[in-house]
């Protein structure tokens, strides 16, 4: 076995030192009744080339064209420099920076990530990342309950929030909480009147998509004003992180917590994971923040260094009284996002976001011309829902393209709704081909 350095002679020497004669004897602490009687029913080992052939065969079954589809996982260009840096062994084969003196790389990247999340969201503090946007949304709901010292146990969700985010919030808050949904209007935005009726003194938080599942940009300020009237927190959930390159940060519009995904930066879609959940909030809620946090400090000589900090909130110290049971973050994916954001920089981020908006707008306008009218009147970024023929997915596939999601499985009333996403991976030729396929 190429991953095991031991020669038969070394094994004998080691056994002798341990004081046993056979490898089997190493397992003598395990009672025979607990031992496996025969070999596992697992196939024989594959040599590297056969293994690669097998994996290539499985990988080849997925289409190679960038799909016109987001809905929580977005097709974007990942610069080769991001991936080559991620392949630095020092980054991907390191663990949690428990020993900060030999983990400064990971820690400083985490600190940079937290800074980027703060800048993108317009909120003062961010953690080292979360599993994904949906579990981050659920953790935000739990945090809002903690902020109210457990006095508020109701969570209000916009029905236009990503269906899986709503699902996950319900899973996490299955016991002892109530979760209520508020519908959307013809603009695809949350119905503010219905929201006003739903939010009460027991409401800990209101969760809305920004942009929402339909790609529509919610009026976050109006939402947060309604929530604040009753003392509830506003949580913005952003599935498409690139939107924050063009749209105002949620913190500037009144959100107290901003969560979501930064998969769009430097990470492939990976069939839905791993991505990069993010979590940002106001400084006042620091002690209630879930997950790992990196902070700056000094060493013995007074020079700058970084450490994991405020861990008294966390499970390994506080156990059953922790703010969350999270033990890890998505460090490597957060590193990918950090590197990509550094490459894009101030001008590049805005330019890329604007490019996405323009291409998506071109697609929307051309689709409307051929009868695929927008489903909603609200403003959008790079994702939008249109009315499309029932056989749209087949037409798209027959044209050698991919994507488009029929949303009636989530919203039965939106029978002919097709959700599309256009990014920098879709040039004019591809967009025109999509329009033609749906004409």
């Amino acid at each position: 076995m190429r991953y095991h350095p031991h020669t038969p002679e070394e094994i004998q020497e080691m056994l002798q030192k341990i004081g046993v004669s056979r490898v089997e004897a190493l397992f003598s602490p395990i009672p025979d009744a607990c031992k496996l009687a025969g070999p596992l029913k697992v196939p024989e080992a594959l040599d590297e080339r056969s293994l690669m052939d097998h994996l290539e065969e499985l990988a080849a079954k997925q289409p190679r064209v960038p799909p016109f589809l987001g809905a929580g996982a977005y097709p974007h260009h990942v610069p080769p420099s991001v991936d080559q840096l991620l392949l630095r062994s020092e980054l991907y084969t390191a663990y949690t920076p428990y020993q900060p003196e030999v983990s400064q790389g990971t820690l400083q990247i985490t600190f940079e990530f937290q800074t980027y999340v703060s800048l993108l969201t317009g909120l003062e503090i961010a953690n080292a990342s979360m599993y994904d946007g949906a579990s981050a949304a659920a953790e935000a709901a739990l945090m809002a309950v903690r902020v109210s010292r457990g006095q508020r146990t109701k969570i209000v969700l916009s029905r236009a929030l990503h269906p899986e985010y709503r699902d996950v919030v319900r899973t996490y808050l299955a016991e002892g909480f109530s979760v209520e949904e508020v519908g959307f209007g013809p603009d695809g935005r949350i119905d503010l009147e219905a929201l006003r009726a739903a939010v009460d003194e027991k409401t800990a938080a209101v969760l809305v998509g920004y942009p929402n599942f339909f790609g529509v940009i919610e009026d976050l300020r109006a939402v947060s004003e309604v929530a604040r009237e009753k003392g509830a927190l506003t949580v913005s959930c952003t599935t498409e992180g690139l939107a924050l390159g063009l749209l105002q940060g949620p913190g500037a519009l009144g959100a107290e917590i901003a969560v979501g995904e930064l998969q769009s930066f430097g990470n492939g879609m990976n069939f839905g994971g791993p991505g990069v959940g993010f979590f940002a909030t106001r400084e006042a809620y620091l002690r209630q923040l879930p997950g790992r946090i990196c902070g700056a400090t000094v060493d013995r000589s007074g020079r700058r260094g970084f450490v994991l900090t405020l861990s008294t909130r966390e499970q390994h110290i506080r156990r059953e009284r922790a703010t969350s049971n999270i033990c890890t973050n998505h460090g490597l994916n957060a590193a990918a996002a950090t590197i990509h954001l550094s490459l894009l920089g101030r001008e590049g981020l805005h330019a890329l976001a604007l490019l996405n908006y323009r291409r998506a707008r071109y697609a929307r306008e051309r689709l409307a011309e051929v009868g695929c009218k927008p489903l909603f009147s609200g403003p959008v970024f790079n994702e939008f829902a249109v009315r499309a023929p029932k056989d749209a997915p087949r037409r798209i596939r027959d044209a050698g393209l991919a994507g488009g999601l029929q949303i009636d499985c989530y919203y039965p009333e939106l029978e002919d709704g097709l959700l599309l996403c256009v990014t920098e991976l879709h040039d004019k030729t591809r967009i025109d081909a999509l329009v033609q396929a749906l004409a």
Partner: protein
Amino acid sequence: MSQEFFPKTSPGTRGLVYREPLVFERSVPGRIGASLPSAGVPETDPTDEIPAELLRGPIEHFPSLSENEVVRHYVRLSQTNHSIDSGFYPLGSCTMKFNPKVNEWAARLPGFADAHPYLPQEQLQGVLELMWRLQNLLSEIGGFAATSLQPAAGAQGEMAGLMMIRAYHLDKQGSPRKKVLIPDSAHGTNPASAALLGYQAVELKSNAQGMLEPEVVARAMDEDVAALMVTNPNTLGIFETHIKEIAEIVHAKGGLVYGDGANMNAILGVARPGDMGIDVMHYNLHKTFSTPHGGGGPGSGPVSVSAALEPFLPRPVVVKDGDTFRFDFDRPKSIGKLRTFWGNFGMMVRAYTYIRELGREGLRATAERAVLNAQYLRKLLEPDWHVAYENPSLHEVVFTDKNLKETGVTTMDVAKALIDHGFHPPTVYFPLIVAGALMIEPTESESKETLEHFAAAMRAILKRAKADPEGLKRAPEKPVVERLDEARAARRPILRWTPDFEIPF
């Protein structure tokens, strides 16, 4: 530093390793590190459609750097990290094994890395087949009936397991029960997950051998206990020999047994938790199945269950109908979804690749070598270091700083001194039941001579602790930073860069 304290061990050195400013401090306005296409479509103005209040221009304080500068910045940062590929990394309970390179190649195949989770299932047959095969392999390896790959990490797998237990009791007896029993040697995630689900965590004392006694479980066990959570081998590396009897005690009162699979590496192909009476267990793919730890994630925490719990698995699971693979969402008793989409698929690819590379024999050989290495290292260290528990351990062993009492040198000092010897320290101060714990898990990846060099370094540190305790407290002296003030970080939290960031560089 004298030769005496640094025997032949590949000591850490400094050389051309840089202190690197933050990326924000490297910014020069006007530079850019990205190549963007031209729009190729009309250059429309978003203010036509989007209210100005919701728009913004380039974000102030975002940096501007060229690509080569960004690359150099992150390469330099990477060089200040220790990693498995650069050296021994014996963190107990973390299973820091070699991360095979073919795994990384596999995860980057465009058909995997670029697969969208919502494509029609007929366009996803390859990824679904991989998930289906991995589900079955994990069920077989752990001795369970079924597996969900959805949990994002071990702690989420734990949460899923407890949710299933809760759903099971609700389904069976109409109420979820109140308590969860957890040994004092358990990972902190165990009580935290139990609390998240509204259970009362009840701590069980380990005996003088570091094991859980059936009588202790029997005394705590009543009809209000939903589950017992156990790690086997436990966090001391000790196999819970009474596990079958303990499981019977729990089952007799209608409770279930949750297995924390963190230490599966010790028993791969040797024993199966499902055969010992464990009803549900999470795996850590980043521990047992070689997916990279990534400087702190992503993990992946599949959860395997007995037939009785199968209806409650997170939805969907992958099923095979004839020659086609599909997601089965129609699971009315499911606990629901834990996260978006289907799990950390990128980690599944790596774990699947690893299991197929090892095959049946290789899995068992892995456990054998992991235990061989841990026992060999234990023998090398035992003459000088105080072992927390005398009875035999498997894949990891816990030592303490007891022999250093009179020197004033602590476990933390030993850890920092190891760094100057070129070794990443073991896990320190865990498990909590051992004072001054040094928890060492070498894994199967390390060679005999690496273990010997590590033991030599530990001997040298012991010697220096007695001769020059103050000198030892200055360690580490070789990394890019010296010992860091963690108390200050917590007292005055600085969690992001701002233009007035004042800590000298």
